[in-house]
């Protein structure tokens, strides 16, 4: 017996969007395979790279999530001035471009960084950031904000009444953990682990720069080698397929374990927690928040410090590139929403559609770029299409996050108002206009902000298609670095960081303004 209410989730446009996304990711891989005339079997070095990739991705996901639990708990049960600002600022590393972030991390953890300066002053031996631990550290830096947001949303989904009930029953914090928080965590953690695992799987520059040598070879580097060094397109495509298959498996496994768990705008409220009002727990939460804030914000401060001086004297080409990046981000944001909304609607009935969205995280940028090149080249000048292609690929990369933000709220909206819309006889278009879009304003604003910020920071595939006259900001930063202008690059990095955060903030606020509960 099919309840008619789900008729609100019209599937066709969602399937079209999902097919388009799958095509954008899979067609290039297929094109590379086709161009190669078949696959190439990975060699022993490639398998070693796969092992390292899996190890670092698993460790990064586990540690990010493990640290996010106390951080999210502290944010969920404490109220203090500047809490919202802190949550926003803590999200910054996630939208930071890799090259900028690594320099920020080194300013703190590097040889001449703050930590080593401090240890030296105390007469203690220094630390070395390079190696597996450095790779994991950087990945935790990038993904702890994401994990914290996902888990914080879980905490906020526990009704306040349950905590009041727990208080009236005299539950200790341990009891609350066992009876209320652990069931929530069990529902949220698989999703969080899987997303971060997928993100770290295709990590390249971080793993290479901080890995300390060829021991830290990732699959993406193996793909580079296959492509550039051996020009073995078949092997490159097979490695990219393995990467995609791993993420698909991880995503399906996580989806099986839980349907719940999103992250995002959510209802941002902190609950009064009667069980947690002991001085010891207050101290613990304060310490956790201070440590997390120091870990995430000190490298950001270093980026500001390092780039501030050069910001005023940036060459015109950098400002021009910033304008190009903003344009690409605008197009990419619109595309992300245009894909995410129908896919989210269709995913209410068919959750596996979200897995298609996740592929974007795991796709090898190099293979996607090469594949698109192979596909476009016979028909058009790839250089002329550099910006549209970059916007499209950036949109696909931001899609999984947009879906994660929108699906839970969409599910609630359909559950709450689907029957009302049915009984009033609203047509699909009216439902979208009058019910769904207004109800999803905050999520759409958040997703748009995320998509825009990620697009601004992402080098994407443009490096393969670059047109000398229209560079994006990340490409211009690379060019500055390639021309010895490290100071100007740091200034441009700060500009990029500022733009990303500003765009995110504006869109996110736009979604919140005048939004009725």
């Amino acid at each position, binding site marked *: *017996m*099919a*309840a*008619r*209410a789900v*008729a609100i989730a019209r599937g066709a446009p969602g399937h079209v969007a999902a097919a388009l996304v799958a095509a954008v990711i899979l067609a290039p891989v297929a094109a590379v395979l086709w161009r190669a005339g078949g696959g190439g079997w990975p060699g022993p070095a490639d398998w070693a790279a796969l092992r390292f990739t899996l190890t670092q991705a698993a460790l990064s996901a586990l540690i990010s999530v493990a640290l996010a639990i106390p951080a999210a708990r502290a944010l969920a049960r404490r109220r203090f001035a500047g809490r919202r600002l802190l949550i926003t600022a803590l999200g910054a590393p996630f939208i930071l471009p890799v090259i900028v972030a690594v320099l920020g991390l080194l300013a703190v953890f590097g040889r001449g960084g703050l930590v080593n300066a401090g240890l030296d002053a105390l007469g203690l031996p220094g630390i070395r950031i390079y190696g597996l631990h450095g790779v994991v550290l950087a990945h935790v830096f990038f993904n702890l904000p994401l994990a914290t947001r996902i888990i914080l949303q879980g905490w906020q989904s526990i009704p306040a009444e349950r905590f009041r009930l727990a208080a009236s029953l005299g539950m200790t914090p341990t009891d609350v953990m066992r009876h209320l928080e652990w069931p929530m965590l069990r529902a949220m953690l698989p999703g969080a682990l899987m997303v971060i695992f997928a993100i770290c799987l295709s990590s390249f520059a971080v793993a290479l720069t901080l890995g300390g040598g060829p021991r830290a070879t990732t699959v993406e580097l193996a793909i580079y080698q296959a492509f550039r060094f051996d020009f073995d397109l078949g092997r490159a495509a097979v490695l990219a397929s393995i990467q995609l298959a791993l993420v698909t498996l991880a995503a399906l496994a996580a989806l099986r374990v839980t349907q719940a768990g999103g992250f995002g705008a959510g209802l941002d409220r902190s609950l009064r927690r009667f069980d947690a009002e002991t001085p010891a727990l207050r101290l613990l939460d304060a310490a956790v928040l201070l440590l997390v804030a120091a870990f995430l914000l000190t490298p950001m401060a270093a980026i500001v410090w390092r780039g501030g001086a050069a910001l005023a004297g940036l060459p015109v080409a950098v400002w021009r590139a910033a304008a190009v990046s903003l344009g690409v981000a605008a197009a990419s944001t619109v595309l992300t929403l245009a894909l995410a909304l129908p896919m989210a609607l269709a995913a209410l009935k068919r959750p596996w559609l979200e897995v298609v969205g996740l592929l974007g995280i795991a796709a090898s940028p190099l293979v996607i770029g090469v594949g698109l090149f192979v596909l476009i080249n016979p028909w058009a000048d790839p250089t002329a299409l550099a910006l549209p292609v970059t916007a499209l690929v950036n949109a696909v990369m931001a899609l999984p996050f947009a879906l994660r933000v929108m699906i839970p709220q969409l599910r609630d909206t359909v559950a*709450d*108002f689907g*029957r*009302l*819309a*049915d*009984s*009033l*006889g*609203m*047509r699909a*278009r*009216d439902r979208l*206009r*009058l*019910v769904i879009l*207004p*109800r999803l*304003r905050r999520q759409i604003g958040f997703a748009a902000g995320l998509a825009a910020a990620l697009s601004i920071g992402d080098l994407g595939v443009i490096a393969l298609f670059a047109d000398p006259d229209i560079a994006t900001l990340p490409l211009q930063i690379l060019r500055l670095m390639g021309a010895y202008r490290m100071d100007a690059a740091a200034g441009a990095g700060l500009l990029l960081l500022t733009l990303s955060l500003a765009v995110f903030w504006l869109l996110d606020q736009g979604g919140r303004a005048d*939004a*009725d*509960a």
Partner: protein
Amino acid sequence: MLTLEAVEIRQGAFHLAADFSVETGARVAMIGPSGAGKSTLLDVIAGFLQPTAGRVLLDGLDITALPPAQRGCAIVFQDNNLLPHFTVAQNIGLGARPDLRLDRADRQRVAHAIERVGLTGFEARKPGQLSGGQQVRVALARVLVQRQPLVLLDEPFAALGPALKTEMLGLVDELMDETGATLLMVSHDPADARRIAPRTVLVADGRAEPPCDTGALLADPPPALRRYLGS
């Protein structure tokens, strides 16, 4: 006339059969223990759920497979009757045109309905700025605007206090007098039935009994209802 013709609903272990008619313009309450299937039966009448077997007819027309909005019924749910981002006037306007493109006549109907339920001056408020009673009034005003021959109430007053509930039932009574619509009201409170529904359908033990006189039913309840009433 609303007719349930050999209707059967099965969902796993749940089972409910109904076979009865309700006269046009009648006011019928549906009472029974929770979990017996009152709301499920209402869902079948409203078109949210397809029965496993049987037909639903309204004035001789088979509406079993029609979508909810084309069956000639207006419904007020327990909650989520109002879209939080719309004003009172807009929420009521949805009853006139679900795409909210109202013409002058529609707006007049809305204004009249607002006046009728006593919400003049509240047109521009949003649901979040209204009390529980006022929210119910908005939903009832929309029913008025919808002008459907059949009105279904799915316990919309359950969360209201006794005085407010009496007031709302009174309002419903007046509105039905005005429109001449047939009313079917799910309630778990026999007092509601006594107040405005001369006839009552008892839903219990996998069966929805044909409507019978409310007073007589409550005065001499059958065993199933007696257990429910606890008397």
